[in-house]
């Protein structure tokens, strides 16, 4: 681990100033992502500004929706009654991620800012443009089992690993920040970037820009998150998807779909979403929607499995969200989100 100074932030302004003026400085909140990367020698900040103590932990009603403080833990947000009831996709995504211990530490700002699980990124002895710009991309031509189908570049084919981010993208959440240039609101779908020629930049945040809250806009529809992983718990998604449906009687008024595990950011699918608007939900319609969602997928050597997996997953998510099929477990829990359920005689408790 590279030596660094550690400082507790006194207030938002001080935190922003301390990081903004030092290009080698970084924030730390729960530390569950940051500390791993320090230990791997991937991040080498010379100053860590701990923002976990800042009073940004409240979850409150806000403009008909919910404002989630940046420092609310993943656990607090997942079990917050208004979120679990009105935005079950968010609770499902959170509770299907990581482990209880990690969720108790992890914060709502830190989670979408965690970095890729591309294994090459975490090995300083491998080339990686994201970690060391210009060194090359080992995943292209290497072991690219967990990599992207959409929006990748010749510089980087990594995926974003956060489950939460996928749900937030489908719900058109907004991110409140305060930075060296003052405060602003960012559409969640604009928070993350595609790799392009600058894969070392994951987000559109400025250096030293502090997330203060994540806002869920008012929403009267149904939402749902589904996740496939290589073990029943405590594993990142191979593929996931979040669906938000607003109904108008028996018809779908508006649909939003975000795919996870397939791109450098949660992958919204406007063409597929458009197919659903004004339609009655049927399995056939959902098949066509899924086909459209994956029409432009560009697989690498080891990740083509994500295409059928992702399509099947999206069909199921739409069937379950529209009520054509029952959820695999209670809405707003990991049991609803976890494809395959748990081992044992009964897959999911009801």
């Amino acid at each position, binding site marked *: *681990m590279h030596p660094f100074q550690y400082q507790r932030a006194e207030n938002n302004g001080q935190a922003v100033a301390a990081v903004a003026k030092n290009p080698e400085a970084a924030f730390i909140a729960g530390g569950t992502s940051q500390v791993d990367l320090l230990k791997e020698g991937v991040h080498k900040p010379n100053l860590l500004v701990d923002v976990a103590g800042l009073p940004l932990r409240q979850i409150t009603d806000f403009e008909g929706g919910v404002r989630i403080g940046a420092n609310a833990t993943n656990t607090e947000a997942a079990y917050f009654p208004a979120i679990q009831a009105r935005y079950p996709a968010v609770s499902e995504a959170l509770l299907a991620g990581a482990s209880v211990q990690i969720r108790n530490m992890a914060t709502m700002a830190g989670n979408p800012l965690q970095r890729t699980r591309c294994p090459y990124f975490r*090995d300083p002895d491998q080339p990686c443009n994201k970690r060391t710009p210009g060194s090359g991309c080992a995943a292209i031509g290497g*072991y690219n*089992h967990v990599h992207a189908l959409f929006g990748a570049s010749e510089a980087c084919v990594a995926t974003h690993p956060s489950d939460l981010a996928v749900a937030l993208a489908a719900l058109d959440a907004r991110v409140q920040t305060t930075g060296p240039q003052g405060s602003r609101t960012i559409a969640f779908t604009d928070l993350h970037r595609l790799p392009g020629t600058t894969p070392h930049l994951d987000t559109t945040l400025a250096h030293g820009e502090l997330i203060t809250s994540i806002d869920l806009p008012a929403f009267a529809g149904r939402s749902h998150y589904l996740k496939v992983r290589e073990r029943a718990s405590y594993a990142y998604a191979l593929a996931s998807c979040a669906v938000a449906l607003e109904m108008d009687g028996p018809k779908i008024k508006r649909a939003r779909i975000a795919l996870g595990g397939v791109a450098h950011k949660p992958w919204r699918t406007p063409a597929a979403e458009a197919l659903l608007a004004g339609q009655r939900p049927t399995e056939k319609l959902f098949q066509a929607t899924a086909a459209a969602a994956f029409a432009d997928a560009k697989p690498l050597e080891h990740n083509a499995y994500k295409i059928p997996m992702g399509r099947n997953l999206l069909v199921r998510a739409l069937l379950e969200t529209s009520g054509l099929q029952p959820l695999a477990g209670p809405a707003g829990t990991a049991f609803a989100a976890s494809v395959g359920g*748990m081992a044992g005689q009964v897959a999911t408790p009801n």
Partner: protein
Amino acid sequence: MLTEATGQPLDRVDGRLKVMGGARYTAEWDLPGLAYGALATSAIARGKVRAIDVKAAQQAPGVLAVLTYLNAPRLQPMPDKVGGSLFRGEGGITETLQPLQDAAIAYAGQPLAVVVADTHEHARYAATLVRITYDEAKPELDRATASRQTLPEAFTGSKEEPLQVTVGDPKAALAAAPVKLERVYESAITHHNPIEQLATIARWEKRNGADYLTVYDTTRGVDTLQEVFAASLNLPKENVHIICPFIGGAFGSKGWLYAPALLTAMAARVVGRPVKIELRRQDMFSTAGQRGATRQTLSLGATRDGKLTALQHDTQAQSSMVSGYTEPCARVSRMMYAVPNLGFAHHLSHLNLPSPCPMRGPGETVGGWALECAIDELATELNLDPVELRLRNYADKNPETGKPFSSKHLRECYARGQELIGWKARNPKPRSMREGNSLIGYGMATTMYPAARREASARTTLFADGRALVQSATHELGNGAYTIFRQISADALALPVENVRFELGDSALPKAPTTGGSATTATIGPAATAACQEALSALKQIAIRDAKSPLFGATEDAIEARDGRLVRKANAAQGETYAAILQRAKLPSISAEGTAKPGDEREQFSFYSFGAVFAKVRVDEASGSVRVAQLCAVYDVGKLMNPQTAHSQFIGGMAMGLGAALMEATHYDARNGRAVVRNLADYHVPSMADTPDIIAEALNIPDPHISALGARGIGEIGCVGTPAAITNAVFHATGQRLRSLPLTPDKLLKALAS
């Protein structure tokens, strides 16, 4: 009257100590003046160090020394053989590369420098400052095209473990067989990944003018490590002392790879202070051993009514450039079924990958998987129930050697296992059962484990306060060794278990082999018993000669131990406590050593444990996810010394087998040979949500030949068999045969699409 302690479900005697944090693991010893070492390892898999620049590391805060091949102490070559195991050469068990002796690089992750500093943090940071440049060569990473390919003669050089065998004429029998089947099975590289990483602390001193080395190490073979150190460092064996009272899991690691331990001793020598090196999790994927990948071809010939006429099992194994370790995949095929024409071969390719070593069920876990899947395929081919096919080929004697089995009750295992899972109630037709989004399938497999027994010694000390201490240089891996050896010793001494302590994990104690091969119970149990008998015999002699003793003048044969007393067999009222005898003799204690080893019975019988594993799975077709709904096994492992610790061993092994079946795999980059998976977030072992309530039963029928205790080993049998039962259940669920471990969703989806 005391009840026998063996066979009782005694709680782990070290359990409380462990949960209270009182059990001291290797990395936790705190020695005065301790310095810390960190490794800098090779970024490339093949070539040489061109230059190694240690200046920045040396100048970093707290750094005491940097060792590279240019300045490290010289080592003697790794010995050819230790404790009867072949170390060097094809089929040898260990890595022979001695660390930091030259510039050559055999695999990525190979240690190339050790940085020693005053703190752990300083050492690790400074290690990142070591700059190494390379003359890189193209690594050999493909089994099929490897330039060094061999046919090893025997596993670890043992005459009982030939790797190339033909009995009868399998080729001709296959050609003539009415039903034939040839299938290829592949398994991935897997890693042991115990919670406790490898660690060593080494301290040099002068004792009587000579160098003396004390080593705390995570080894499961103190005596073997002592020999390796003595030979490598050119020291008399008596001047090397190895200590390891607790191990945080090994699963095959911590036995046979010595570079990190040797590096610690070298570093301590150079800085003149005790040094500790604890591996990082990432290093566990390069310097701690692995199960190599395999490609196995199973050829079966059978009659229409399901009698096997031929079985040929050919394995393509892989090892590193610096080890001859060969995964002995035919260990199950060579003994399981009554087949007159039996052959197996092992082909070894040397690659620029880290060295393999045994991993729970070496050979059996993946070799048994291939065999038991092939048998299942044959059952489908013949339209026979998989259990029935196995019964039709039930072996009463070992098909390779012709020796009868010492004790075999496998039929009962099959019968009970079927009841436990509800085998008969299933619809045997593949792809016929469904629940919601899931396909349901049932599968089974036979399992076994060789019932090894080795020579070992122990010492028993009886104290004048009525307590006893029994000691042997064996190990506690978390398996319950402290507990059952206390139970066995208590019975041998006719004392309550509370009055007996057992000590282990120290090379100064009476000799014991490396813990492995599920042989510890069968090896140390009789040794402890022998030592206890020797101690009692010495005590009898004192009593016999003591005119004040009620046993005065008796012959030893006429005296027995009962309830903590020596009494006349003819009249138990005539006798006295051990304490009374010692107190009157003014002896604080009396000690005796005993040795036990297997004898002629090994020539007469074939020693194996058996079992049958049954699994029910759910397969989510849309995602390719497999979940195990039920996992049941019934084992015939001889007499259980402690049903509680035994049960833990069974279910732990089965969970590990479940991991091998569904998720465990380490990938290496096919271009540069670096481990791509290097942490426990990406290397998946089963979580609680992956493991159903496992049912494991044991028949508990003593083996009349293995030893007076009747106990065979149980450490590995749970892991063997489980992968095949699950794979066969996936076939029954989906109608698709998957022949590549692990059965991850991508592979399922591919198979289901076809």
